[in-house]
């Protein structure tokens, strides 16, 4: 087994095992450290004896033993060990080869996304513990230095331990509050993956993890429209990934993407989740967002007109349940296509620039509409504003091309 295959095997097993250990021992650090110990032992043992039949089960048993050893050691070191730790050691039979690894990932997701955890740490913690991404990978995705991100993870884990965050999945009465924190966290995490338009960069595995985590969540909470809707959104978005940049790495706007390059099986999968969500709650914000994605992905070829009217109608509906500047901006884009550039511009100008000044899409959309309205000088200023904000290289290339066309 090469170290790369080993790495993959470890990551595959990681979320499930860390989650099972964490909920058994109620200790995130112990779970993580024991899994790391088990991986280290696997490296040694598997290269000597060859890999076991069931790598996951082997890692789970070993990690479980490491955790129990650590607790025993701690108990000898501190004679006043908490009651919980003693129970953990003595009342639980050791797992053997036939013990299935309990799937406690949902529990762990709710722990990582507890509202008592700092919002900027929730996504990172979920990616680390549930998806098994390395600190380095997460730091890169969040444009943070590795030590900064590591600090953030340590603080969040300490908070969970010291504040007494429960390792239970909350009851349905608490879901409106708790589930939204979970879904928003995943949206943030996915947003980071999606920003890298080419998808060949550091986020490649990361997007795969998002498919997996939304699948798990939708499977575990099948009666929540929002979980199916999110699984659907992530699939529609991932399906379009191959068409999102051209050969030079430049971003291609959605309406100009060639539908034949989209990944059909992912679209089929996305529709299945969408049907489920629509049957539960067709007008919930995330369901409407998924329906917008579906409208785009229904397009068969570039020869077919873009579905702007349908998109506008869906944004009208979305605006009623989620009135924020991002929805308004997207609606303005559709409005400009259906009712003309002036209508779109007029809509944007009602926002008042202040709150969106740091929001790249605002400047990019405004620049495009100004350009099409023939207001070239204002358009150039808006492109400059967009370019002054941090953008991925694909977006930057596209914005620069648009601006260059303007001055020709």
């Amino acid at each position: 087994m090469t170290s790369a295959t080993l790495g993959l095997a470890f990551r595959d097993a990681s979320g499930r095992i860390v989650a099972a250990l964490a909920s058994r021992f109620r200790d995130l650090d112990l779970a993580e450290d024991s899994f790391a110990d088990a991986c280290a032992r696997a490296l040694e043992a598997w290269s000597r004896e060859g890999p076991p039949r069931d790598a996951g089960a082997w890692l789970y048993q070993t990690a479980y033993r490491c955790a129990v050893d650590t607790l025993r050691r701690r108990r000898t070191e501190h004679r006043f060990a908490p009651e919980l730790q003693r129970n953990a050691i003595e009342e639980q039979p050791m797992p053997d080869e036939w013990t299935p690894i309990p799937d406690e990932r949902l529990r762990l997701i709710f722990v990582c996304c507890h509202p008592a955890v700092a919002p900027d740490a929730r996504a990172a913690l979920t990616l680390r513990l549930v998806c098994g991404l390395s600190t380095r990978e997460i730091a890169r995705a969040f444009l943070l230095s590795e030590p900064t991100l590591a600090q953030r993870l340590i603080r969040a884990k300490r908070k969970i331990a010291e504040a007494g965050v429960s390792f239970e999945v909350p009851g349905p009465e608490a879901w409106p509050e708790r589930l939204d924190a979970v879904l928003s966290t995943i949206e943030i995490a996915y947003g980071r993956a999606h920003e890298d338009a080419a998808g060949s960069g550091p986020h490649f595995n990361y997007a795969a993890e998002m498919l997996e985590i939304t699948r798990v969540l939708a499977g575990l909470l099948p009666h929540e429209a929002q979980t199916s809707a999110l699984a659907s959104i992530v699939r529609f978005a991932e399906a379009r990934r191959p068409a999102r940049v051209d050969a030079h790495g430049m971003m291609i706007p959605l309406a100009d993407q060639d539908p034949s390059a989209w990944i059909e099986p992912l679209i089929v999968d996305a529709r299945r989740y969408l049907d489920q969500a629509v049957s539960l709650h067709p007008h919930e914000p995330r369901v409407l967002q998924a329906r917008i994605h579906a409208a785009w992905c229904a397009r068969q070829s570039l020869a077919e007109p873009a579905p702007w009217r349908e998109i506008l109608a869906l944004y009208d509906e979305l605006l009623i349940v989620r009135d924020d500047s991002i929805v308004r901006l997207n609606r303005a884009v559709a409005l400009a296509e259906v009712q003309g550039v002036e209508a779109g511009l007029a809509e944007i100008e009602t926002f008042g620039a202040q709150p969106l000044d740091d929001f790249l899409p605002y400047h990019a959309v405004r620049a495009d509409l100004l350009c099409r309205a023939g207001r070239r000088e204002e358009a150039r200023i808006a492109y400059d504003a967009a370019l002054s904000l941090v953008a991925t290289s694909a977006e930057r290339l596209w914005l620069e091309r648009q601006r260059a066309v303007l001055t020709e």
Partner: protein
Amino acid sequence: MQYMLLIYEDERIYGPDRENPAARERRAQHVAYSRELGATRLAGSGLKDSTAATTIRTAAGKQTIHDGPFAESREQLAGYYLIDVPDLDAALAVAKKVPLSQNGAVEIRPLLVPLVAG
């Protein structure tokens, strides 16, 4: 686990001597809530107005006595509950129902060393 619930409110709404109708109404609510909590509540009380507060500040090892609360802010520490519950979610559930005016906050802090009953 034991948690301290620290209640922060703009104390001006209760009048200088905590005897106006708003204060009396809130006090009655706290009495009722304490009864409802039963054994979950280990201790708790409202605090006198922050004008009654005295703060000892220590700087570079030297102590000075000041009139007034530690932090000057629109909301002041107005009271506390000490509760014993299984976990943070249970503490949050208790804290959410603490009687409060329209604006205010309840800070939830686990005790470092649990209070031994009796």
